[in-house]
């Protein structure tokens, strides 16, 4: 399939970096003292489901029913999650989350993002010394935040290059009643429902962290 747009979302990069880095935890507040900040213990990651199966012959772990992954930096829910079991000392190289996939995460600016789709596939592979690590969201995938909603036929998060690719990119961003971009400092609340500006057939290019599209191409001169 043709990739209609390459989108670099800096706002995701922070989350990526945070996710890729084994942070020791936030420093504790030692207000009024010169005591060195002590690392706070990181809350645990929890995976809950109705049922689970561990197929040790096929090297698979399968969670069914109301699957929830609760992590301090991310929350994921779906109806079915399958992970390949690695060999001893190896790593998980394939995870599939199916049906009503919802991923909520917070970037390094504290902005929340809400990604949804029918399926999310995590792949980790090494070819000729090069690491390829991606998360691909399909089935009406979209990413929503305070600025708007970005959709596509497919959204691929290339973790190695900290980029997100969209196929058939579509951007809907919110404006408040004054026409200004809605944000947490906006004097006018988004309610009643915001004006939605829909951008179709977004030209290939790069956008900044705000999710705003690159400048539209100059329209061709009128034909005589």
């Amino acid at each position, binding site marked *: 399939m043709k990739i209609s747009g390459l989108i670099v979302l800096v706002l995701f990069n922070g989350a990526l970096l945070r996710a890729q880095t084994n942070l020791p935890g936030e420093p504790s507040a030692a207000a009024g003292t010169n005591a060195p900040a002590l690392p706070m213990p990181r*809350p645990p990651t929890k995976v809950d*489901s109705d*049922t689970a*199966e561990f197929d040790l*012959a096929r090297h698979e*772990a399968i969670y069914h029913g109301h699957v929830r*992954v609760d992590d301090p930096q991310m929350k994921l829910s779906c109806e079915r999650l399958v*992970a390949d*079991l690695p060999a001893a000392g190896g790593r998980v190289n394939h*995870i599939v989350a199916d049906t009503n996939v919802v991923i909520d995460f917070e970037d390094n600016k504290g902005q929340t993002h809400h990604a949804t789709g029918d399926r999310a596939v995590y792949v980790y592979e090494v070819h000729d010394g090069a690491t390829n690590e991606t998360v691909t969201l399909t089935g009406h995938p979209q990413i929503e935040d305070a600025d708007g909603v970005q959709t596509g036929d497919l959204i691929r998060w290339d973790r190695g290059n900290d980029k997100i690719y969209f196929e058939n990119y579509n951007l809907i961003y919110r404006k408040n009643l004054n026409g200004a971009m809605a944000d947490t400092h906006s004097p006018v609340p988004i309610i009643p429902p915001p004006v939605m500006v829909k951008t179709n057939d977004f030209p290939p290019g790069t956008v900044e962290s705000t999710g705003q599209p690159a400048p539209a191409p100059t329209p061709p001169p009128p034909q005589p």
Partner: protein
Amino acid sequence: MELLHRALRHLTTGTHRARGWLTGLVALAAAVGLRAQSGGHATDFTTTEYYPDQKHVKSVLSGTEALPEPGGRLVIKQLKLEQFDSDGKLACVVTAPECIYDTVAGTANSAGPLELRNGDGKFQVTGEGFLWRQTIQFLTISNQVHTVIENGATFNTRP
């Protein structure tokens, strides 16, 4: 997703341990079953398995009661299985208030809770109701599966 990946990596490494535990459970429970069948039921039993060097303990299966039932089944109460690394370090622990081992079908199951945790307790899986099918190496936890992975959870992945 990295966090999920990391969590699952811990989880799956833990399940490799589980395979060892449950294989040990079946073998050791069979031994207990043979003893129980010959002399009624066993109480407060402990069975120890050693590494090939015969010096280091590989696993310890204990229970408060082992009751033989018709059809080659064995009911084990207050099951506790401990698996050790070859250097003697506790690798993981499996506990269940009750477990039925079917020597004919090669299955172990219970409607009650199951808890599986690693040696330092930083990785833990619990659930209600389980079935272990030895022949196809398949563990099913039927209800309320909870996995908790604490930061710094480590697993000895040596074979």
